């Protein structure tokens, strides 16, 4: 079974290589199963890069849909969808839901959500309940109005208020982290003792 599959992969890889050679491609894909990596578009639509460093050299891949050998022996080459599906279909099908982060805002120096943020609670709860074995991180923040110590406390109170929403909805999480960054991680940089609604927030990440 295993040998048959490998032979089949050899055959398709060989065919693919021949076709691309005929098409005049400068660096044809390898003709047998090899160790290689392929850069894909990021989920947000941007494209990053990978470097492959091995005994044969170092290769930088910066175009999505391009791959290169792990030993750094060949320049990046285009990898078509059929090859991606054959080698990586099972892997991509097993990818979990990507983590999602919500930002909820608060009124003044309170632990009361703004009217706009209250509307988002349903979405937060839906994300938690839609996932198998969700783990959740909640980080509370404040603006710079008040002392560092009181803002540590307020950030924690805000984070705990959001944690309570999840608990009150009867949702089970396998791990919950509730943390305050107080006024130390401002979304909008301001001087001390400055009221800034965008800094009065809780960031909740659902994995």
């Amino acid at each position: 079974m295993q040998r048959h599959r490998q032979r089949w992969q050899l055959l398709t890889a060989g065919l693919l290589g021949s076709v691309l050679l005929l098409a005049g491609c400068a660096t044809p894909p390898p003709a047998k199963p090899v160790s290689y990596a392929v850069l894909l578009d990021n989920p947000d639509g941007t494209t990053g890069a990978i470097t492959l460093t091995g005994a044969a050299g170092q290769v930088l891949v910066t175009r999505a849909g391009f791959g290169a050998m792990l030993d750094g022996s060949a320049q990046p080459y285009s990898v078509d969808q059929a090859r991606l599906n054959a080698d990586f279909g099972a892997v991509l099908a097993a990818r979990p839901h990507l983590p999602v982060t919500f930002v909820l805002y608060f009124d003044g120096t309170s632990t009361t959500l703004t009217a706009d943020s209250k509307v988002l609670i349903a979405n937060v709860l839906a994300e938690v309940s839609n996932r198998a074995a969700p783990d959740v991180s909640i980080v509370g923040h404040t603006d710079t109005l008040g002392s560092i110590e009181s803002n540590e406390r307020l950030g924690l109170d805000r984070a705990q208020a959001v944690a309570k929403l999840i608990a009150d909805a009867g949702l089970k999480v396998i791990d919950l982290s509730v943390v305050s960054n107080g006024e130390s991680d401002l979304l909008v940089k301001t001087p001390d003792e400055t009221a800034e609604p965008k800094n009065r927030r809780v960031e909740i990440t659902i994995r």
Partner: protein
Amino acid sequence: MKFLALFVVRSTMLMLMAATTPAWAQEAIGFVKTVAGDSTVTDGGKAVKAVPGTPIRLNSVLKTGAKGTMGVTFKDNQVMSFGPDTELTVDEYLYAPAKGDLKFAASMSKGTLNVVSGVIAKLKPEAVSLKTPTGQIGVRGTNYVVRVEPQ
């Protein structure tokens, strides 16, 4: 006006877990989210069948069987999924952004893998690496797939 100290409160459940787990057991750095077929997570030489919620720790060995697949998320939002007959070990994991402690290193001996980068790769791309028998992969805020033929 920078305040570096983090005020951390863990859930009671986690504190209880820490108090009752053996000395070699490390804090969870991620969790299994999807599983099909025979897949295992091995810690300290002890293999457990992977199910959604199985914790991943430093030095965990993640393995899928001939027809198995598995998907994992890490604390820094890195997402990995494994195709059949794949084996990967988490060699290093540091995620304390406030202190600048950021590191992810893993070794993959065989199989197929998809990686969607997380916060560590975003903040400190040079601290992220995947070792394979024939070469090492480095990233810059990236989504990629890799196939490793066993040596």
